[in-house]
């Protein structure tokens, strides 16, 4: 893991077996990326323009929530024709600068996780997880009622204390 000022960089890890398909992650993501940042106002007034950057996939009783993996070797950064998609070398976060984005959807074309969305509420731009910069913990992780998303620097699958 990349180190920054001696701390390891944290990522969101997904524990598929604990996802209950409630979609609270999507709701809180929408609130976080709304103008008002208040759940009632956001859902009453801004619903058409707030895109959730996390997607819950569900088939039968299996489900999981997936968002941008902030890949080290991000294909979206390669594909971006306008220089809007950039990986910050310090934080490791891949950010889409929506002012530079021209809505060509090349990033959508190459993202193997399919976690970039078209935000067509205003100027057509690409929308994706920004690890909630400004928050200590991304809101999807914080609000998951079953701890199916973890924000940590170690892959929980390899963590030594593992329950049966």
């Amino acid at each position: 893991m990349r180190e920054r000022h001696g701390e390891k960089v944290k990522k969101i890890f997904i524990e598929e077996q604990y996802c209950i398909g409630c979609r609270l992650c999507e709701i809180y993501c929408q609130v976080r990326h709304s103008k008002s940042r208040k759940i009632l106002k956001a859902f009453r007034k801004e619903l058409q323009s707030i895109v959730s950057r996390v997607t819950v996939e569900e088939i039968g009783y299996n489900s999981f929530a997936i968002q941008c993996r902030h890949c080290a070797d991000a294909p979206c950064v390669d594909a971006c024709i306008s220089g809007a998609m950039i990986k910050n070398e310090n934080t490791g976060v891949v950010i889409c600068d929506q002012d530079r984005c021209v809505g060509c959807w090349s990033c959508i074309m190459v993202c193997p996780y399919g976690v970039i969305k078209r935000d067509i509420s205003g100027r057509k731009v690409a929308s994706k997880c920004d690890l909630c910069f400004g928050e200590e913990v991304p809101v999807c992780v914080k609000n998951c009622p079953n701890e199916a998303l973890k924000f940590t620097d170690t892959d929980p699958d390899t963590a030594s204390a593992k329950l049966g």
Partner: protein
Amino acid sequence: MEKITKSKTDYLIIGNSAAGVSAAENIRKIDKTGGIEIFSSENFVNYSRPLITYYLSGKIGPDRICFKSEEFYSRNNIILNLSTAVTEIDTSRQEVITDRGRKIGYGKLLIASGGKPVIPFTSVTGRNNKAAGPGSEISRLGGLEGIFTLTNLADAVALRRYIEENSISSASILGGGLIGLKTAEAFLEMGLNINIIELSGKILSASFDEEASEIISERVREAGSSIFTGSTIESIRTDGGKIKQLTLTGGKVISCELLVVAVGVKPDTGLVRNWGIKDGQGIIVDEEMRTDVQNVYAAGDVTRSHDRLSGQEKNIAIWPLAVRQGAVAGKNMAGQNASYRGGFFMNSVEILGVPVISLGLSSLEESSSRDIRVYRTRHPEKQVYRKIITRNSRVIGAIFIGAVERAGIYAGLISNEIDISEVLGNISGEDFGILQLPADYKKHLVVGEGVEV
């Protein structure tokens, strides 16, 4: 940019676009002190070639057309030589000669000169020939006003100026491929009437099937264009040095005050023709982007490289591959091992409000071969069309019109040659996702840290 240039530089890069810049960036990450010089025959610090149609229509201004800032070059200590074409490469002396007569030695050389437009005719007759706009290959045709190619920013600038100065109200576009259509869209946004002239039976024939092509044609016609398929320009009439009329295949005559030739691009390998670097259609490179001349690399639209879907070497002139090839070349030039796995054709664009993505061998049908299967999802009322093509239970091509979200999942499936026989049930559906794909695929989709699922 400093004007001080050395007589030798460690890393010499010809070309200041996707591949060249990506190479420079990657070299600098590894080699903090080596000298890097980029030579560009153009006069712009930096711009993104795919954005020139956006610039043409005015959708973006000159401030938003670059993909790297000026500060990028200074911060990374990259010396940028603009308006300087490299005219000769002396591989035995390991030096290049510019059009100003300067000689520069190189430790490693990267040819990233990109592509040049294909001109389907070699001469145009008319009266009072005059020189055409700057930076255009058309000038070689003996000069004519009103005929343009559109492959660089200078073309776009000239075209804009020409339209304004001459109050152009209609234009014809030779070529119904992606560039032609983006140009058409730009013109439509500027309020012009358009004629699109396409040689094959349908527009977007390279990457689309009949059905997809028809959906877009519909949209284009609705917006005010005429489309002439199965046609090319048989002759051009001029008047006073300006283009006036076109005669198409079959005798149809249309008036024309502006013609943009957008038939395609081919590798600009002029430099290497006589210098021992093998040139097929495109400079041939290996997995490390080396040519067969020591210390000389090539990357981007100028190369022929590995096409994963056909298994052969091809010229695939698209932005993401150029960036990736440039990165691989740069790393190898700086002494770190990297290899390029190959790529395949893909394109994403929004035409007249309809997003459109094509991946791989997207025009195949089940009749093309015994082991090809095709899966479709259609919602014509929403202008949604999704087509997935598989061969031996592996995805090899896809077309998405309208519902393009998550298209990249299929790019991943193509690239990694994943067996999708278990999940065929819903393969072309809008809700197809990665949930059902094998766990170890989900976990290691992209190489590198921090991508665990």
